[in-house]
């Protein structure tokens, strides 16, 4: 029996040695340590991270445990409970979508790089990690989210001029595809597209969301401008194939985000390589390392490579993202890792963002 009582400040001092690897500050000054309880020789506390998808969660848990065990005399057991609370970057109140903490745009330079497939899997993966996630299909002319995320309850307009989003795999969904179903095309000029996106952004009952993923149409057009002018986009992900021609065009989308001061979370390389289902051999159909090289050159994080895999396509056609349908597959793990890397970048950005408002003097 230890003669001296263990104090809270001893435990907190010990925990000051545990650093968050992304924010470069210790977990005590970041105010991550909550609910500290000392029961005799047993210490318990929560470590409240900035995202449930944190890739270093287990490492931080173990470091916190060891720090207290080794630095505070008399402690026999340390119980660490990992929790998460996604922070909202500081932006002017009037422009926020109520309840939505972070808006993440997913764009690409050209069509057919698997942007919607990536967006649905990122959304489903983040939701599975415990985050509250919404997915807005901003591809007004070719909405594919209703096909790729089979929802038992589609979105529907309510009497009070708002839209109730659909839901699938814990992700709230909104798409033009719900409002113009079947094979009916939307034949709209720019101003109509602009209005439609504004309405779906602002009048959908998103509720509380940690992440709203916005699946953009390919390229740089009306919809992109509307998005960046209507709401403060926390940041953007560029989906690219390894092919250089694909990358050169991705650059245009990247420059558009830079010009409109949308932070770049990183580049995600889709269709990185093909694994032959017969021999297991890896074939780099579109070349290798293009996107990783480009992100290095641009100083933008590389969020990972996702293989060209029949299973991803088949599950998407079935309406179930591969991270849900086959969570143990290599493709699902690649997408989960990308979602974790993205969540990490969002957390960093949420801390760095400076508040910008117009102050009356």
């Amino acid at each position, binding site marked *: 029996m230890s003669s001296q009582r263990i104090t809270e400040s001893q435990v907190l001092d010990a925990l000051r040695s545990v650093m968050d690897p992304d924010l470069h500050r210790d977990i005590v000054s970041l105010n991550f340590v909550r609910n500290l309880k000392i029961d005799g020789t047993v210490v318990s506390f929560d470590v409240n991270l900035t995202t449930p998808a944190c890739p270093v969660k287990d490492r931080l848990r173990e470091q916190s445990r060891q720090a207290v065990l080794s630095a505070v005399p008399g402690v026999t057991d340390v119980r660490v409970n990992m929790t998460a609370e996604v922070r909202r970057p500081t932006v002017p109140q009037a422009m926020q979508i109520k309840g939505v903490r972070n808006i993440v745009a997913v764009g690409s330079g050209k069509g057919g790089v698997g942007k919607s497939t990536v967006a649905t899997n990122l959304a489903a993966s983040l939701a599975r990690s415990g985050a509250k996630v919404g997915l807005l299909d901003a591809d007004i002319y070719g909405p594919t989210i209703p096909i790729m995320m089979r929802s038992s309850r589609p979105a529907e307009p309510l009497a009070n001029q708002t839209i109730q989003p659909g839901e699938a795999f814990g992700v709230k969904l909104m798409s033009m595809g719900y409002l113009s179903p079947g094979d009916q095309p939307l034949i709209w000029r720019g101003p109509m597209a602009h209005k439609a996106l504004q309405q779906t952004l602002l009048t959908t009952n998103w509720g509380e969301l940690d992440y709203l993923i916005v699946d953009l149409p390919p390229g740089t057009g009306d919809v992109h401008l509307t998005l960046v002018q209507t709401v403060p986009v926390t940041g953007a992900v560029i989906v690219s194939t390894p092919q250089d021609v694909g990358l050169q065009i991705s650059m245009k989308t990247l420059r558009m985000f830079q010009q409109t001061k949308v932070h770049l979370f990183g580049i995600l390389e889709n269709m990185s390589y093909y694994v032959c289902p017969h021999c297991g051999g890896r074939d780099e159909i579109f070349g290798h390392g293009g996107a990783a090289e480009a992100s290095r050159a641009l100083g933008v994080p590389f969020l990972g490579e996702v293989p060209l895999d029949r299973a991803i396509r088949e599950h998407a056609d079935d309406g179930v993202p591969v991270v849900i349908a086959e969570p143990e597959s290599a493709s699902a793990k690649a997408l989960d890792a990308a979602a974790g890397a993205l969540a990490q970048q969002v957390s960093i950005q949420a801390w760095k963002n400076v508040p910008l408002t117009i102050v009356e*003097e």
Partner: protein
Amino acid sequence: MASVDEARVTPAEIRKKGGERITIRWGDAHESVFGARYLRGRCPCAQCVSETTGVRMVHEAHVAPDVTVGGANLVGNYALHFDFSDGHTTGIFAFDYLRRICPCDVCSGGPA
């Protein structure tokens, strides 16, 4: 985000003094003070700068001396929008444009 060039065109603080002036303190600590008429005469919209030739059509000299800024709003993360008292509302003033037209003695106004 941390680069010097970025800081130059990223506002740290935006202040509005009634309808008469907008002050921006930039990420590099430089401060720009824009009068309402100065801004109205440098509106970058397609009505004030010809879409086909790029030649400025509306100059400060064309603007009423007593014009004021009724409202000022942020546009996404990259620009400001003003409601001028003469009814003109179509300009989107990107931050890098505002920095280019800083009227202080050092920057000397930039393009009029």
